[in-house]
């Protein structure tokens, strides 16, 4: 085996090469998916590549992920509804899930909170919780699917986002609705307009017929049953209708941006 390695790259110690390559990668995120040093090293041995060029592999993967965004947008049927379930199938207890502990979840005073509406909309007036509660609401019992693979069925009640966008005079030809939230480290996420206009995409105020608890995103979450869980914003502070791709908390770290179900 040792002789074989020497034959692959004469005079170059593979381990040192990998170590040097890793040193040139400062960002944590970048390291996170490339420093699988051993497995990547093993892979290059398998494929016979001489040099571990991790940055070009990373670039290629990013390109494919963008291609996958386009494929998923093409596959997305605006009329296809996420399956709904009887209330007896609701997962209890419904899991709390975030990149922080429940103790660190935002604590928002409902009376002081206002939803900011920005960007390509006619009416940019902020909305109080009482005003939002007066809008017509619908309930959905759908499956929340996490990017990690697990899933849970929950009951969410609120106003279809498309009704609200119509109400504030949003330019629905714009590309995205971009949400900013109160999570620590500043969670945000872009939602493509076609998904924003999907009949089941909802401004959620209740979980299981009760006012949305802190664990699930009080005062407002955006329930998107046609997206993976990480693209369902909680503790929403503002929404912006925009043509610009502004990135997102998870999207910027490498999760596929469309991540449609």
């Amino acid at each position, binding site marked *: 085996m040792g002789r074989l390695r020497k034959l692959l790259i004469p005079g170059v110690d593979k381990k040192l090469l990998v170590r040097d390559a890793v040193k040139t990668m400062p960002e944590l995120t970048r390291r996170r998916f490339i420093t*699988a040093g051993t497995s990547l090293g093993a892979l290059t041995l398998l494929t016979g590549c001489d040099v571990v060029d991790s940055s070009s592999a990373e670039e290629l993967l*990013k390109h494919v992920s963008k291609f996958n965004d386009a494929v998923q947008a093409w*596959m997305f049927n605006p009329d296809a509804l996420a399956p709904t379930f009887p209330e007896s199938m609701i997962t209890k207890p419904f899991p709390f899930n975030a990149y922080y502990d429940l103790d660190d979840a935002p604590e928002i005073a409902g009376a002081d909170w206002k939803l900011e509406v920005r960007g390509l909309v006619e009416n940019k007036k902020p909305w109080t919780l009482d005003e939002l509660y007066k809008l017509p609401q619908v309930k959905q019992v759908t*499956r929340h699917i*996490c990017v990690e693979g697990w899933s849970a069925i929950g009951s969410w009640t609120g106003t279809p986002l498309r009704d609200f966008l119509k109400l504030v005079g949003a330019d629905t030809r714009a590309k995205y609705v971009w949400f900013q939230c109160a999570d620590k480290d500043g969670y945000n996420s872009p939602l493509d307009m076609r998904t924003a206009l999907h009949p089941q995409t909802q401004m959620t105020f209740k979980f299981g017929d009760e006012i949305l608890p802190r664990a699930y995103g009080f005062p407002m979450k955006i329930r998107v049953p046609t997206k993976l869980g990480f693209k369902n914003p909680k503790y929403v502070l503002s929404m912006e209708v925009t043509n610009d791709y502004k990135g997102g908390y*998870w999207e910027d*770290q490498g*999760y596929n941006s469309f991540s449609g*179900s």
Partner: protein
Amino acid sequence: MTSLAVSDHQAETATPAKVIQPVWVRMVHWINAVAMILMIMSGWQIYNASPLFGFSFSSNITLGGWLGGALLWHFAAMWLLMVNGLIYLALGFATGRFRRKLLPITPSGVISDTRAALTFKLSHDDLSKYNSVQKLLYTGIIIVGVVIVLSGLSMWKPVQLHWLVSLFGGYDIARYVHFTCMALIVAFLVIHVALALLVPKSLRAMIIGR
């Protein structure tokens, strides 16, 4: 010395060795090997994010470093696997290779060939003909390959392809199906590689064709 070399050369050109594996089979085979290894190693990393069973895969044998990286690998290699697999299926049917090589499979043939294999009496003289055990395993692994792609698609697009999810009996069951198919492919891989090493001329045939 020289004359010996020449006569060897003449002998070779006079009776050219029969092509056992045509070039398209060899190409899709090795592309599939790369795609499968990428899918399995990144799949193990994805599994670790939310294990179905009471164990995780060691990070030494996974690809991607973390869930996000593994998903990028998995959803890139899936194109390689799927496009290559479709070409294989199309050519396998169109050229008649599947019918010629994999059929018929009879229970009695499988039993007698298994017995012969276990007592080391199975002949490998003609590599262009598969024995019954090979026929069964190769047909089986093609079906497993189709099922792992379909269960994977249903997990990737559980809303757009909800009919496919229902076919598997639900999202959660599709995850178990996907995992089981992976386990079957890994088991096949172990046997397949071990036997190829035991009968090196079969490995040679998959590389140079003869």
